[in-house]
């Protein structure tokens, strides 16, 4: 059995599927850019943009980086990094805003 057959037998996608994922990514990017210009969506814009970015992130990680098909431990390693980064951001945010917000300039 060739490696290509071995991988496809274990659920690895075909080039056609990769192209399909890329088309979805391109469409999502077009949607992101378009809605960023729509003033009536201003109140929910941040949430919609974050959700779209999350979907794009997930598509690349799952399909192109093969996290969908690989051993779960690789996903855990990656998610640990993301969660720690979010925790750091939370701590920094809490610290700054409990001390009156970020300083206006590096020297100030």
């Amino acid at each position, binding site marked *: *059995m*060739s*490696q*290509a057959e*071995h*991988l496809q037998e274990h659920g*690895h996608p*075909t*080039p056609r599927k*990769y*192209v399909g*994922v*890329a088309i979805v*990514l*391109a469409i999502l*990017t077009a949607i*992101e*850019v378009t809605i*960023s210009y729509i003033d009536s969506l*201003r109140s929910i*814009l*941040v949430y919609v*943009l*974050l959700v*779209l*970015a999350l979907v*794009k*992130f997930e598509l*690349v*990680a799952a*399909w*192109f*980086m093969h996290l969908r098909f*690989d*051993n779960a*431990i*690789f996903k855990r*390693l*990656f*998610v*640990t*990094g*993301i969660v*720690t*980064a*979010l925790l*750091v*951001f939370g701590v*920094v*945010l809490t610290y*700054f805003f409990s001390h009156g917000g*970020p*300083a*206006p*300039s*590096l020297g*100030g």
Partner: protein
Amino acid sequence: MSAQEAQVTPVSDHHTSTGLDSVKMAMWAFLGSECLFFGSFISTYLLYRNSVTAGPKPHDVYNIPFTSVSSFVLLMSSLTMVLALSAIQRDDPRQMRVWLLATAMLGMVFISGQIYEFTSFVDEGLHLSTSTFGSSFFVLTGFHGAHVTVGILMLLTLVGMSFFGKLERGSRTVEMVGLYWHFVDIVWIVIFTVVYLIPSNH
């Protein structure tokens, strides 16, 4: 199993205490740590982007249509990268080289766009030391650009290795470089949304 089949079987899965490829494990641990690296810069940018004490504000300098095209280019480079991996897994080194070169070319287009963008920002009066917005913007996007540049060098090295027959069949090396490249792409997905598309308070 023939000698040829043995050569293309995924490497070292059965020779480690975890039963997993140690190099791949190390790569994912590295990418996890890179999340922290970029997470810190993104956090800093979010905290300081409204702290404009001098010079232009974010919406004065950003050119969303231009950056959207750059983002699209980088996104499509992920497709060419995964097609390169797919080609080498089908034992087609010629196709792999074509897709690797396409990925490197798209990366170079992205970097050229970033150089143009930085130059135009400097022309409009936004320097590294103009404001905390400028500092955090240039450090974040500059480090991302440096990562893309390293990725391009790795891609071109792979093409050279393949030409001289130094790349093993069903190459794990291509997969590892691919993981790095896709990571650089997903970091840009976040930067594009958080830095460029989400409006600042100004």
